[in-house]
């Protein structure tokens, strides 16, 4: 009985230590990447700006059609159900508040992050992992090129920036297209719908959207970069780290969402 208890305590302790060291490693890496990136010296280095453009193109531009498609589907469904609910209780003023609370503050940042993770997240871990397996980090260092500045910062920046922009686009597309389509089939005027949305949205909601729109992709990128950089020299481990990276990023996003909700509830 005591042995079993000790064994469980041992496992729990090991898990805690492992988790703590992972978080510490991730934070150290992120601090190093941010320190290099925010110094802004990369702006004068064509080698780095080229990687930044490529990452923005891959994450933002190529991901745009998917975001628009999903925003359209989610927008139609969300607006239809919200308008239907508001009509059923005969309180159209709820439309703006519900759209603001559900679509703008919760659904949009979360769905965009999930889309980015499923599309670019896996690619990020796989690419970094493959570079490590091939020893390309050593080649870069042999040329005096900072891995943080050349490899990690462009990815972190592109993921965060594109995440924020795509979240805004998601909100605009889902509200406009959703509202337009629902107004065609329902007894609600499109202009009235927009007025209700505007009435239900305050500065706080926009601030939360900006916060989550930037924070979720950034936390995800931190987790993905951390996994990608620790693949080691084993090619077999790349898919394992990619899965762990995406799932870890998703968990981190959900936990930070919960933390924001808790902070707001307590404030």
């Amino acid at each position, binding site marked *: 009985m005591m042995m079993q208890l000790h064994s469980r305590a041992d496992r729990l302790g090991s898990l805690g230590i492992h988790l703590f060291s992972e978080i510490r490693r991730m934070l150290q890496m992120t601090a190093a990447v941010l320190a290099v990136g925010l110094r802004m010296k990369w702006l004068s280095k*064509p*080698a780095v700006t080229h990687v930044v453009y490529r990452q923005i193109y891959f994450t933002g531009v190529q991901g745009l059609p998917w975001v628009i498609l999903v925003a359209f589907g989610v927008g139609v469904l969300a607006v239809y159900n919200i308008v239907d609910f508001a009509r059923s209780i005969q309180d159209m003023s709820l439309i703006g508040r519900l759209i603001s609370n559900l679509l703008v503050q919760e659904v949009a940042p979360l769905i965009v992050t999930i889309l980015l993770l499923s599309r670019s997240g896996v690619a990020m871990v796989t690419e970094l992992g*493959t*570079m490590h397996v091939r020893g390309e980090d*050593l080649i*870069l260092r*042999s*040329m*005096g*090129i900072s891995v943080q500045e050349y490899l990690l910062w462009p990815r972190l920046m592109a993921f965060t920036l594109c995440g924020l922009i795509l979240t805004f686009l998601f909100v605009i597309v889902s509200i406009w297209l959703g509202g337009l389509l629902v107004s065609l089939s329902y007894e609600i005027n499109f202009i009235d719908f927009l007025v209700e949305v505007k009435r239900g949205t305050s500065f706080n909601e926009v601030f939360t959207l900006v916060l989550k729109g930037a924070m979720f992709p950034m936390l995800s990128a931190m987790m993905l970069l951390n996994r990608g950089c620790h693949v080691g020299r084993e090619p077999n481990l790349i898919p394992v780290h990619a899965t762990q990276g995406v799932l870890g990023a998703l968990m981190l996003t959900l936990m930070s969402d919960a933390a924001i909700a808790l902070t707001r509830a307590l404030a």
Partner: protein
Amino acid sequence: MSNALHWHKLQFGLTDIPSSHVEYGEYVRLVMNFPCQYAFMQHMFSPCDVSSAENWKMWLQTEESGQHMSGSRKFSMSVGSMIRHRGLIANLSLRENLLLPFLYHEDQQRIEQAMDELAEVAEVIGITTALDEKAGERTTVTHALVSLGRCLLIKPSVIVAQEVHIGMPPEHLQQFTEISMLALQRLGSGLLYLTARPDEGSGLNFARTLTVMTDYPTFQSEKGE
């Protein structure tokens, strides 16, 4: 020019890599097993302040501008490297691979100068037609040739080569040996050759050979082959 690459004694467990130096134009061979070579390179290419071995230093002593510590921009642009099967970044073209250190470290004028010299260098190493191809997966000889091309563009004081002649088919080895001999003659740089075997197949005439034996004292022979 009396530039020289110096390093302090480096200890890995029970193995010591002795402190030594490579003068401009001098060829030195450092014989040690692969883990030691790899660890030596890891230390060498890390900035001195973040090197895991405390107080370990490698620096380039130059006549014009004094000491350049490892990891600094000046050091990277004055010490070339050729690592076995580690010469290419796969998602860049061969042209970008050759110009990468310039695109990262240098100003527009120096980048343009390197671009002008690129065609000639590509011809020397025989990759003119493939310059705009994506690197992707390439043979060991292509990795070695691109590393050599980069050295030809940088014109370093010292080149550090790690078993670049190992693992090539005989026809590639002969082709690479001829090209590298020609390039080294043209550059006049010093060479530090890291290898596990004294018969590494480079055909170079080394002035000194340092042999690092695991768990045993280090031997040094003043004369090479």
